[in-house]
């Protein structure tokens, strides 16, 4: 039995999704590059105002977060509610690293690079520490532990104090460091990081997105990636053909954490101040909304959702007092429209009618199946 079965599944794993890889990668990279060119053109010609220009970096950060969370939620099939925690680790360690190297590297881009690397390393360590014990948990229990992790990180950030003086980095717990003046402070508890030298740029953001895409797409389409997806679809079947479930899940989790840390580091370098409260449960949920709205497991869908939903609240400013209410309604309506089987069937019939590339045998989608793609 085994002799026949093993090579078969391996081949299948190798073959599976090979055709889709090229297409998915093409669309994903295409979106980034076209988006970059369009936004740059818009900014150069003055069509795009300060408001949207100011959001270039956050858009890149959120797009990148959506991609990295998709690795856990979509590809690995685990619900994570603590992505902001990893982002926080990356952001704050990145800020410290950038401050410490101020005297070493004159160039802002170099410091940004250092911040991103340090942020990624520390976030990966956090992901590893939290990942080892919890990946045995399933479904909503894993979700709650990631939520707990995010809250713990934020809680700790509220009592951590860092400063830099002639002796180097100083650190205190739960009280201000004596003999430090304002300019030497790096992180001051709940007040967070202040006087951050802004080094992030739109180009850095785009590079971040491209790098994240490169890592996630390659992982998704490697042998490991298909192993992870096989485990997601049927854990027992996956285990029975010899896939080391825990190892693969841990790998996806740590990579995702490291990428979130990088995004956090870029985010931290884009504002002159950063408070721990930014990384609360709401931010984790926001990133999850991107992933689900874009289609779970669909990388470029999540990217588009992230970009649109980041801009949407700004576009709704005209509504004044009704802004966030409108945002909530749009969110609910879009969710129902994209996931309700009946409405989807109607939409797909409409698309079929106008779709010149209609293939034979493409039936209207009537079964619900958002989570199993």
């Amino acid at each position, binding site marked *: 039995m085994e002799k026949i079965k093993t090579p078969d599944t391996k081949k299948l794993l190798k073959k599976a999704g090979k055709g889709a890889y090229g297409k998915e990668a093409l669309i994903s990279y295409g979106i980034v590059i076209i988006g970059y060119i369009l936004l740059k053109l818009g900014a150069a010609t003055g069509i795009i105002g300060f408001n949207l220009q*100011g959001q270039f970096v956050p858009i890149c950060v959120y797009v990148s977060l959506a991609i990295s969370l998709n690795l856990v939620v979509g590809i690995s099939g685990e619900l994570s509610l603590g992505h902001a925690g990893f982002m926080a680790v990356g952001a704050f360690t990145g800020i410290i690293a950038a401050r410490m190297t101020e005297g070493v590297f004159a160039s802002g881009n170099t410091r940004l690079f250092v911040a991103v690397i340090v942020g990624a390393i520390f976030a990966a360590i956090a992901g590893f520490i939290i990942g080892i014990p919890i990946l045995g948990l399933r479904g909503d229990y894993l979700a709650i532990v990631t939520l707990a992790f995010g809250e713990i990180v934020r809680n700790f950030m509220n009592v951590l104090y860092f400063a830099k003086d002639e002796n180097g980095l100083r650190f205190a717990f739960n009280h201000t460091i004596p003999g430090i003046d304002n300019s030497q402070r790096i992180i001051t508890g709940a*007040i967070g990081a202040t006087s951050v030298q802004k080094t992030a740029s739109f180009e850095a953001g785009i590079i971040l997105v491209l790098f994240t895409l490169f890592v996630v797409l390659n992982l998704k389409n490697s042998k490991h990636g298909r192993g992870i997806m096989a485990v997601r679809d049927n854990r027992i079947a996956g285990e029975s053909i010899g896939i080391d479930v825990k190892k693969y899940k841990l790998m996806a989790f740590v990579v995702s954490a490291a990428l979130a840390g990088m995004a956090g580091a870029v985010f931290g370098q884009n504002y002159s101040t950063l408070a721990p409260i930014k990384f609360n449960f709401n931010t984790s949920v926001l990133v999850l909304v991107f992933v689900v709205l874009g289609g779970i497991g669909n990388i470029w869908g999540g990217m588009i959702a992230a970009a649109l939903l980041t801009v949407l609240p700004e*576009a709704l400013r005209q509504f004044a007092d009704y802004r966030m209410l409108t945002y909530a309604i749009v969110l609910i309506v879009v969710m129902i429209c994209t996931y309700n089987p009946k409405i989807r069937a109607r939409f797909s019939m409409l698309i079929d009618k106008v779709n010149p590339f209609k293939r034979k045998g493409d039936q209207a989608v009537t079964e619900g199946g958002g989570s199993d793609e």
Partner: protein
Amino acid sequence: MKKNWMKVVVVALSCMMAVAMTGCGGGSSSSGFEDGTLKIGTAGPLTGPAALYGVAVKNGAQLAVDEINASDPEFKLSFVAQDDEHDAEKSVNAFNKLMDEGMQVLAGTVTTAPCTAVAAEAYANRVFALTPSASGPTVTADNDNVYQLCFSDPNQGIAVADYIAANYPDAKVGVIYNNADNYSSGIFDKFKSEYESKGKKIVAVEAFADDANADFTAQLNSCKDAGADMLFLPIYYTPASNIMTQADKMGYAPTYFGVDGMDGILDLEGFDTKLAEGVLLLTPFTPYSEDEKVQAFVAAYEEAYGEKPIQFAADAYDVVYALYNACLEAGVGPDNTAEEICDALIKTFNGGFKYEGGLTGDSMQWNSAGEVNKTPKVCEIQGGKYIEK
């Protein structure tokens, strides 16, 4: 693959619809800058847990703008407040939105952490900023064009420490502060170092994290067990009302000492004001003042918005008048660019400009660091009114 396409199409369509709707909504909306006026903008939390501060600033500033427009036939103002949800990122977005709309002067932003982020942007864009209420020291640091109308957090911490040490030498002081909040931990840090430098000891330091509706019995029990007979609350009045109510139920009655965030506690709907009897607080403004100007302001505010103004509204009102007076003195107006106004106002503010007769201070002047010369005054609540000590 096709399912995914569809989702994206639907999402994109819905978002476009929403954006298109905003286009239509824009015309009918009454807000927005008007041409030929001095365009004053602010950003503050109009939604979310901190919304009451942003809404108060918006209302107070609007009141001042309407008054000036009614009385001055030549120099007209227009005012727009954008929501920042008390978040630095959103606040920068709101600032950029205001820049798109042609803002010339920033009367904000409302809260400290977002204001610190916006201050850096205002510095880079050369827009003059006078914040009504962002009291953290980080707001004005490094920025030559950002000024505060409120007194700064460290000053409040020092003032309270000095006052307690001088007037209540035997008090056993406990503290409950919000360690997830910039404002609260900023005041507490300075209070602690100043009070301890006088050889005094704080008997109990307790914290809570942002949740105004939490259970405070553990913190209160610790303070009670430590024998604290004076409780310093460097927090806003919302959690303070919760703390007082719970302490009352426990039968614990220390003397409370609040800072300017305590103002407003008497007007909290449903709050038993008897609990606030004897509370000491620092405040530059009280709606119960006998002062004529204050009375007129309170009456106009109640008429327009149906509630008593809190200190944030008065600060915002003062900010608009201070900006207006400073512009007249500097000789700049609606026709100047934001940068010209910025340069002129920096010169005026640093050059001894005096704002007389404000609601929150008689004769305000600024130093080149951007701080106002107001001195915190201690008041005691007696019979539902503030009595100056």
